[in-house]
């Protein structure tokens, strides 16, 4: 009963719109604070790596992006399940707003990874298992985005994309492990992956700070996108007119 009420209240667009508006400055401020602390710790305080020199510092962008690429997909798929089961409008908005953000995180993880790969591996791209599954994840994101915008009716597009996101969730582990298995068999002689050294605290703290900053950045962007999307979807509703008139 209470859960149903919570759902109802949280799922109501005007309520969410106002709540998100109140939360936005907090998220944005916390994001900037974490980002500043993480970048300072990572780029200035942390010592250079004994093997990789200064170029390892890209992990402070790369690793959080890669984590976020999976996290955002999970959020999107969870919202997809909510869309299909309870037809909650707000979950459609969140899933729709998440897809491009997640795709950008995936793209950033790929780009920073290949920039790091050039000095380390001597090439921008290798068909390494992780790189390949990240690339396929990007394709999955692009499919979801394509499907969302392919339908004229937004709600149909959102529900179709929800099905695809859920199919992707079943497939992501299969793709991940098959790619990993494929690569172990085809392991090239030119590239040997460096053993992951246990990370020192002076590098771990900024990395975790950056991870928190990326999460907050996602939350901030998500709320902003969801708010504007809600205004557009509900442009004929009374609460939007009141909201605009209040400005």
């Amino acid at each position, binding site marked *: 009963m209470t859960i149903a009420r919570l759902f109802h209240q949280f799922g109501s667009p005007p309520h969410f719109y106002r709540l998100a508006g109140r939360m936005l400055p907090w998220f944005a401020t916390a994001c900037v604070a974490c980002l500043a602390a993480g970048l300072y710790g990572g780029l200035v305080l942390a010592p250079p790596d004994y093997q990789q020199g200064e170029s390892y510092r890209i992990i402070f962008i790369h690793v959080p992006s890669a984590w976020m690429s999976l996290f955002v997909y999970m959020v999107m798929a969870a919202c997809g399940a909510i869309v299909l089961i309870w037809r909650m409008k707000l979950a459609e908005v969140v899933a729709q707003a998440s897809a491009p953000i997640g795709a950008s995180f995936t793209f950033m993880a790929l780009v920073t990874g290949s920039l790091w790969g050039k000095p380390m591996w001597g090439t921008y791209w290798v068909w390494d298992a992780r790189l390949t599954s990240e690339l396929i994840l990007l*394709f999955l994101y692009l499919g979801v985005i*394509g499907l969302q915008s392919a339908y004229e009716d937004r709600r149909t597009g959102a529900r179709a994309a929800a099905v695809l996101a859920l199919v*992707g969730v079943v497939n992501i582990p299969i793709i991940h492990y*098959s*790619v990993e298995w*494929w690569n172990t068999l085809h392991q090239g002689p030119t590239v040997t992956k460096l053993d992951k050294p246990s990370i020192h605290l002076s590098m771990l703290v900024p990395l975790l700070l950056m991870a928190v900053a990326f999460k907050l950045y996602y939350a901030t962007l998500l709320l902003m996108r969801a708010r504007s999307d809600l205004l557009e979807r509900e442009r004929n509703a009374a609460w939007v007119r009141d909201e605009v008139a209040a400005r």
Partner: protein
Amino acid sequence: MSAGSPLGAAMAVLQRDLLLAIRTRRELVNPILFFVLVVSLFPLGVSPEQSLLRALGPGVLWVAALLATLLSLDGLFRSDFEDGSLEQMLISPQPLGMLVLAKILAHWLVTGLPLLLVTPLLATLLALPDHALPVLLTTLVLGTPVLSLVGAIGVALTVGLRRGGALLSLLVLPLYVPVLIFGSNAVSSAAAEIPVTGQLYMLGAMLALALTLAPIAAAAALRISLH
């Protein structure tokens, strides 16, 4: 088995689709021709060198089979969508998943299975060793139904769209990656006389998973896109 039971309804759909396919024989040949043409382009484009072809062969055959399936996918629901019989299936009291499964089975029988007929010929063209041929055929028997089943979800999501073709490949091809990896890897291992039971088990497992889940997902997708 009465026509009123879910299985009876599925059989009726299967029978109808097979009959329709046989009556438009010309279209049956298209996937096979495409398969042969794509494979024969590779020696022209890469090199006629036997050793190179032998190394590329398994991958080329699997990619070509995958593309041939992709090409034929659009026909899975298209004509039924255009003449309205798909909507009749949606409102029928029978479980939609069963009907969809019957349609996918019919589709595989007329587009996936015939690929096996020309495969021995293409394997010879690509200088694949004879002892790898049974494994190649087994991977195709296990793998191409997975392609049809997973592809059906993509087609069901895009059937209502006017220009769904490019989108369909974007939706479906990433999901095909595991089948491609295990299929072509089994064949190259067999060519190198390495045991391939593991790969075949994986393909079988993927078939079991797709067989149970894909019709449900495709049925849900049809209900959404024909909303």
